[in-house]
């Protein structure tokens, strides 16, 4: 027995919808529940990092259907390759486009990105270096926060990542940003 599928209105809607969408020919995968709710992890970021599997096979982001999933896969791959605890891509208002293992609640991450992003821009102009685009902050004895500002069509975006202090993360960040830019830039 079904709740709604047997009703005459729904059967009529299905028939009409089948006609209307047959012309669309979209190869969109079958619908699945995808309500996003991002909450703070229950364990500190450092513990999460230690529990990340070291040798998980990377998934090629270009094989994914949706751009949001591709973005998320890029930063997931980045975190796995270099043992980053988590990462977030946002726009300049803090709107998160892709999130992997956020260290605190998403509201806090958004606010944090806006504050640091504003500080980065202001500091750059005060020092006469308008291209200032990289900020690192040690958050404890082992980890640091990286904020990398990048532009797409003159619109600023941010990649925020949490990573161990003892690694040189720059090349990893730059590779990932290249991938992020190509995904967001795709028409």
């Amino acid at each position, binding site marked *: 027995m079904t709740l709604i599928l047997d009703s005459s209105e729904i059967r009529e809607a299905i028939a009409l919808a089948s*006609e209307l969408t047959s012309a669309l020919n979209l190869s969109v995968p079958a619908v699945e529940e995808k309500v*996003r709710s991002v909450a703070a992890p229950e364990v500190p970021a450092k513990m999460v990092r230690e529990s990340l599997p070291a040798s998980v096979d990377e998934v090629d982001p270009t094989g994914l259907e949706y751009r949001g999933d591709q973005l998320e896969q890029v930063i997931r791959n980045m975190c796995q390759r270099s043992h980053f605890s988590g990462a977030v891509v946002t726009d300049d208002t803090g709107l998160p486009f892709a999130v992997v293992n956020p260290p605190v609640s998403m509201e806090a991450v958004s606010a944090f990105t806006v504050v640091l992003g504003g500080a980065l821009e202001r500091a750059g102009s005060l020092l006469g270096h308008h291209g200032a685009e990289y900020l690192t902050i040690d958050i404890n004895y082992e980890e640091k926060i990286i904020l990398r500002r990048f532009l797409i069509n003159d619109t600023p975006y941010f990649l925020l990542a949490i990573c161990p202090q003892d690694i040189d993360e720059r090349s990893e960040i730059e590779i990932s940003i290249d991938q992020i830019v190509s995904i967001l830039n795709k028409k």
Partner: protein
Amino acid sequence: MGKIVTIASQKGGVGKTTTALNFSYSLSRLGERVLLVDADPQGGMSIATNIRKKTEKGLVDYLAGKSQLKEVAFYTKEKKMAIMGIGTVDPASVQQLEDWARKGALSRALQHIAKHFDYIVIDAPAGLGSLSVALLGASQGVLIASQCKALSLKSLPKMLALISWIQENTNPELSLEGIILTMHNRDNETESEMFREISQGFPADLFFSELIAYDPVFEQASLRSIPVGMLKTGKVAARNYFQLAIEYKEREMLLDQSKGEEDDVDSGLF
């Protein structure tokens, strides 16, 4: 020319205005120039965006020739997104609006305005009246907003039948681009079960996979007359709409590709 997309529904109170506003905002954040038009005489969008603070004039006044586009459409601080309110609404002007709709003046005006934007997103009135018919007659795309609730879902066939009629009689370019499920409460077991059923029963590409979750923060955004993404506390809720805009763009790309395959291969360089 920009694309005209109407956000429609047979039933009222399903989150159509909220969807039009936040979907437009998300498209603009993706770099598109978007004009959000309030075409509902109830003026929900004009209230939701507080455009009356700028001007009392809007679509009705533009159609009457009393105002120019620059006097009724205003860019927001986001620069890429502009808003046009419904304008002067009284019983006479509503009747006049419906008359313009029937005579095609509304469609012609929208197509003229579309030259200045990448997208015109229209917040249409609920129901199947002459205004809805004219708006769909002028649109290339229609998105239906619906709640995952029995009454809302059971009202779908009327809107789908109208779209089918318009395709056959007035606007063959109109494309049903999908149904957006709004105010989804994942903790409601009945709603979740209905969602599972319709996912299996309806064509797989009909519903957007991004569901818009119910969140009290939308009410806070309404109080401030801003899109939820502009609220400090609204970033998570805004992500639903941002992902929806991305999914919409993906669908457009797939549709363009499938249309391109049908084109005459000898007609261009490729």
